[in-house]
């Protein structure tokens, strides 16, 4: 962790990936943000306030729950679930939001903007804006506002304005474009609260820092019950915030295998997918050099998955570097497999998990049986699935559920 951050501080890169590929208008803001972020890491007052919010507002630490029924059913490694779905606002997103909102206050900003796909990051940002009395505008692809209507209403209830984005495909990527444009137009009063471990430096390192609470806790928790490190970590990846937070404390320990699970949509070779690491190539987009789904000329591809939160044609730069070095493995899970896992974990464990997280669960269903019974897997349940119930019902052809 420390080693990584020092690397990031020196050159803003993770291997060849990362950097700050944004218009000049934003560079002065990124400089200020970088300074504030570096300072906060060793500022006892900041750390105290951040951890106080995590524990007393966001309901941390989150549980590390032993999934006994799944373990017995799958007949291999012991499965633990890191329950980020039990956080206030229902997903891991709040961890990063609480860290960044404190930085925004320090920088004297009065308005928060954020992109959101599934709506979880938008809800978390709107929540923090309400708590700290800040203006808030959430950029959300038009299509996503339709498939995640409940979260749109939640954000409005919290006092945020939701701006539906119709440009491009009307998805997460287009919401990021619009948020970057808005930030460039209002750099003085506005703070862009990026929700994933992506974008220009310092965001990837900063989101990792604030999300690393997931693995800081899980490492202590698993050692307390198992007396050893886990054998594998499994987390879903869109831009990659819950995955990088789930990996962070284990990256320097190669005994722990790291698996990032991407959304393969209708299948890797279907042309309707969001499986960046399987099909992507290096490129420059959204402020970073990373791996993207794009054509031979560098035009960014259209993406598809049932999951609004994983519907992104790129991946955070540290994930691109972890894949390039072979430290982490990235695999794809299809819509069908994710929906089956959504139903499976509900019936086995009584947990309705977010469709994003169910991509990770689906991979655990494949991985656990290949591992010995004394091995352990920690699977991050990044969010709860209430928001997905209506669309899963529709996927299964159940009528009348809105």
């Amino acid at each position: 962790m420390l080693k990584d951050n020092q690397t990031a501080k020196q050159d803003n890169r993770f291997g060849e990936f990362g950097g700050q590929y944004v218009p000049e208008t934003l560079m002065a803001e990124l400089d200020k943000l970088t300074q504030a972020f570096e300072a906060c890491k060793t500022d006892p007052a900041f750390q105290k306030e951040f951890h106080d919010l995590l524990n007393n507002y966001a309901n941390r630490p989150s549980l590390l729950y032993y999934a006994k029924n799944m373990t017995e059913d799958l007949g291999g490694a012991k499965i633990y679930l890191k329950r980020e779905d039990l956080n206030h606002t229902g997903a891991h997103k709040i961890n990063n939001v609480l860290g960044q909102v404190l930085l925004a206050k320090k920088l004297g900003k009065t308005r928060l903007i954020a992109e959101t796909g599934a709506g979880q990051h938008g809800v978390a940002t709107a929540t923090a804006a309400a708590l700290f009395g800040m203006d808030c505008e959430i950029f959300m692809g038009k299509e996503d506002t339709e498939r995640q209507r409940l979260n749109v209403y939640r954000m409005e209830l919290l006092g945020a304005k939701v701006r539906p984005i119709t440009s491009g495909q009307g998805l997460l990527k287009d919401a990021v474009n619009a948020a970057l444009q808005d930030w460039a137009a209002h750099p003085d009063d506005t703070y862009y609260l990026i929700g994933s471990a992506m974008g220009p430096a310092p965001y990837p390192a900063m989101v990792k820092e604030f999300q690393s609470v997931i693995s800081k806790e899980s490492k202590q928790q698993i050692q307390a019950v198992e007396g050893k490190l886990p054998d594998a970590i499994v987390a879903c990846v869109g831009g990659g915030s819950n995955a990088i937070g789930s990996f962070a404390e284990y990256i320097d320990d190669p005994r722990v295998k790291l698996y990032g699970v991407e959304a393969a949509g209708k299948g890797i070779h279907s042309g309707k997918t969001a499986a960046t690491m399987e099909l992507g190539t290096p490129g420059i987009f959204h402020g970073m050099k990373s791996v993207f789904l794009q054509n031979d000329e560098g035009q960014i591809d259209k993406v598809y998955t049932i999951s609004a939160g994983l519907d992104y044609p790129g991946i955070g730069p540290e994930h691109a570097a972890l894949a390039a070095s072979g430290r982490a493995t990235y695999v794809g899970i299809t819509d069908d497999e994710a929906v089956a896992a959504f139903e499976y974990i509900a019936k086995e464990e009584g947990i309705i998990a977010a469709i994003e997280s169910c991509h990770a669960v689906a991979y655990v269903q494949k991985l656990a049986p290949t591992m010995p019974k004394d091995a352990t897997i920690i699977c991050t349940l990044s969010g709860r699935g209430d928001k997905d119930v209506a669309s899963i019902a529709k996927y299964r052809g159940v009528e009348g559920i809105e």
Partner: protein
Amino acid sequence: MSKLRDVFQNGHKAFIPFVTAGDPSADSTVSQVLALADAGADIVELGVPFSDPIADGPVIQAAGLRAFAGGITVNGVFAIVAKIRERSQVPLVFLTYANIPFKYGYDKFTARCEELGVYGLVIPDLPAEEAGEILPYTEKHHVDLIPLISPTSGPRLPKLVKHATGFIYIVSALGVTGQRDGFSVNLPELIQQLRQVTDAPLCIGFGVHTPAQAETLAKEADGVIVGSAIVQMVADNPDPAPVIGAYTKQMVAAVQAAQVGN
């Protein structure tokens, strides 16, 4: 010596119109650029479309979509330039996003630029901190990388102008491209600051659309860049070349009036 610098010799003030390559077709772009050159444009800025143009407002975004609908490709843009070169030697610069030359290969992209007479590159998402990765190739192939300066640049100015071999592009307003009536920055002050750290010609863009604006800005700066206003005319007219040519004549006259005024 930079071919772009030649344009500004003896205090000449430049008018620099922008069109998107392939909007709505390759043939139309060729006739648009020739009309701009005939009307007296000193440099023509040609947009190489990118799927996600984050520095551009709705007008230029829409032009990119029309160009894609017309089947534009990066090699298609180079073919447009080759056709223009059969008839005109008007100085050309490209505006594009970093991923386009990165994916094409910086060496190959800048070599094609040199071969076809594209003298400069404007890349809004390649700030000074990242420009080092393309500079060896722009230098090798004698293509000027045009730095962008924003109202927020402040103490960053000396760093930004260090490699300004061609001209400098001053972004006159915050946010994205598009027509504006007012400019959010104290331009005379910014220009004065820049004059202290560079002798490169200073051109102003983002939001300029009327001859009166152009004349006012040209009194302070060495050139005026107009994009969205022209691209909107391309969108509104089935035969845009004569329309943008006539407009460019007015703008050239306005810029030259500022020169006489000096």
